[in-house]
């Protein structure tokens, strides 16, 4: 697994490009802190499917996952940003909860049973975002890239044991800052792609009490929408309907 080293390289690269401009002001003047939350929607990509049911007449049973509109989770995080004129580095550590369901179909002559197994995966996650912003006074839209390391929290649910703990994701973000003078709102949309299978191969069939199914090899992608409230340690620009120049 070379991911931690690669992420360090990415961080080093960003920091080195910002190094010169960072020296123009003190570190604290370029710092924003705050908190935020939002909703996410899980998008499950099946790498390899395993079905616990075999039909003795040769039929194949459907085996899949609920769609993104049904997979609504949430996230809560603390946000710390370092910025200069255009470049912003943002860290948003917090809990990221994903919900989705797997369904298995079992066909009988007079009934078709669909077994649905709900998942709730709660990760402690540390996303790092690099953003390029445009200064349009009160609104400062931005676009950027993101990478995150996450660790799955334990649970009494037996199916939780069929997932591996670490998770790495990467993706793109876009959004806008809204400067409200004393606070800055950060409206952020991101799509993160799972970089690896998140299920445990050795526990593929250890799906536990309340559910008889086989765990697939899956990627967990997710669409996130977040709203953060940030407090700048720098003196604020004043925007109003009437601008005064002295």
């Amino acid at each position: 697994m070379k991911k931690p080293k690669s992420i360090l390289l990415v961080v080093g690269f960003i920091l080195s490009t910002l190094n010169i401009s960072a020296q123009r002001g003190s570190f604290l003047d370029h710092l924003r802190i705050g908190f935020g939350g939002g909703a996410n929607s899980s998008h499950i990509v099946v790498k390899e499917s395993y079905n616990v049911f075999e039909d003795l007449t040769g039929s194949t049973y459907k085996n899949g996952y609920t769609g993104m509109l049904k997979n609504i989770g949430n996230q809560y995080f603390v946000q710390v940003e370092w910025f200069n004129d255009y470049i912003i580095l943002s860290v948003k550590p917090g809990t990221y909860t994903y919900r989705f369901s797997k369904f298995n179909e079992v066909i009988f002559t007079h009934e078709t049973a669909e077994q649905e197994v709900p998942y709730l995966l709660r990760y402690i996650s540390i996303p790092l975002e690099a953003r390029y912003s445009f200064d349009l006074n009160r609104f400062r839209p931005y676009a950027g890239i993101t990478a995150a390391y996450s660790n799955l929290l334990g649970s009494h649910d037996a199916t939780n044991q069929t997932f591996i703990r670490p998770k790495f994701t990467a993706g793109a973000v876009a959004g806008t800052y809204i400067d409200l003078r004393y606070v800055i709102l950060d409206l952020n949309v991101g799509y993160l792609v799972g970089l690896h299978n998140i299920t445990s191969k050795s526990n593929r069939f250890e799906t536990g009490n309340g559910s008889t199914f086989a765990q697939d090899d899956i990627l967990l992608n997710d669409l996130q929408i977040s709203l953060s409230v940030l407090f700048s340690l720098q003196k604020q620009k004043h925007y109003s309907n009437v601008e005064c120049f002295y």
Partner: protein
Amino acid sequence: MLFILGSLIQGCEIKQKEILPEDGFTKIYNHPEEVLSYYPESVVELTGGGYLFVSAVKDENAEIEYPTTYLVRTSASGEVEWTMSYDWLAPSSRLIKHGNSIGFVAMNQQFEAHVVLVDPNNGNVQSEHDLEMTMPLYAYTDTQGYLVVLGYDFISRSSWISKYSADFTLQRSNKLSINTDLEYLIQRHLNKTGQDFHFFIGEYSNEAGTGYYVNCFYNYTLRTVFMDVSSLSATGDIYSFQIEEGISSFLPISGPVFGLTSYYEGNNYIIPEAEIDVNSSQNIKDLPGNPLYELTFKASVVASELTTDTESYALYTSQTNSNSIVIYQHQIEPDSLVATHHHYFDQRVMVTDVIQTSDGGVAILAGIYILGKYPRPLLIKMPADPFILP
């Protein structure tokens, strides 16, 4: 930076121990017909990979009350390759490996026991042999290749034990008088409507000689009877209270020491090291057991031996009240419980057969009630790793 992220997306994977589908799997074999009930009996691993298992299939609309025979051949990863139905009734454990053929023992409508040999490549019947006995309850192939079959003689009201050569010629036979009419109970056992009695046959060899142990009805009670390997005469036994108590599994450990599980007074017990005189009659209550409260009422238990490169273990596989299959792994010498393996399910399960596979793992054949109402076969393949202990 985008290039680096792109590379990450393309090439990353958390390193995990790769589990191939044939290393470990759980498969439930469903038939869409609701009126069919499947009662799996025995599984064998085939040379060259794959499994073959036999089930008794009961059709609630059928005119004949006894279940028919149904074979399923699977790949090494548990996928169905072919299935075949046979008119032979009430197939009994265990399947027989006979050269390149696989055989099962079942009966016709006149209750006459036959061994039927089939081609494992397609299920076609190759030959049928009359075993000259009635109501087969269990079949066992010993280490010398002899077939030993337990049946019930409803005329003399006896347990019927017969031994056959490799070409299924009768070598020796013995009838153990039950002294009471148990035909109705035997019929209900065979047609899956009554109590499932734990009939079994095995082989032991120690200072007292070589013989078979046969769990059968004898002299009013369900007993484990020790029989001389040549004459099939009974040398000793372990008896219990009528048919309400008994031994559910039995395993020779070393010399006069046997491992066994039993049930009486509503509970199940395990005695991993019981010193038993095969030449005397003993009461099961004289064997102090450790209770297994978690097991189902009068639980069926399969005792088997598992050998790794360095150790031998006794495995006692059964099912719990919380719908899990449990394996108690005992180190043989000195005896100690070294591991307990659980497989949880959301429906009732019942273990019927356990074999060690060629890769050192374990295959478990069981029954499961899909949706809580349709009994179907369940095959679990466990890799060798969980059984290899540091």
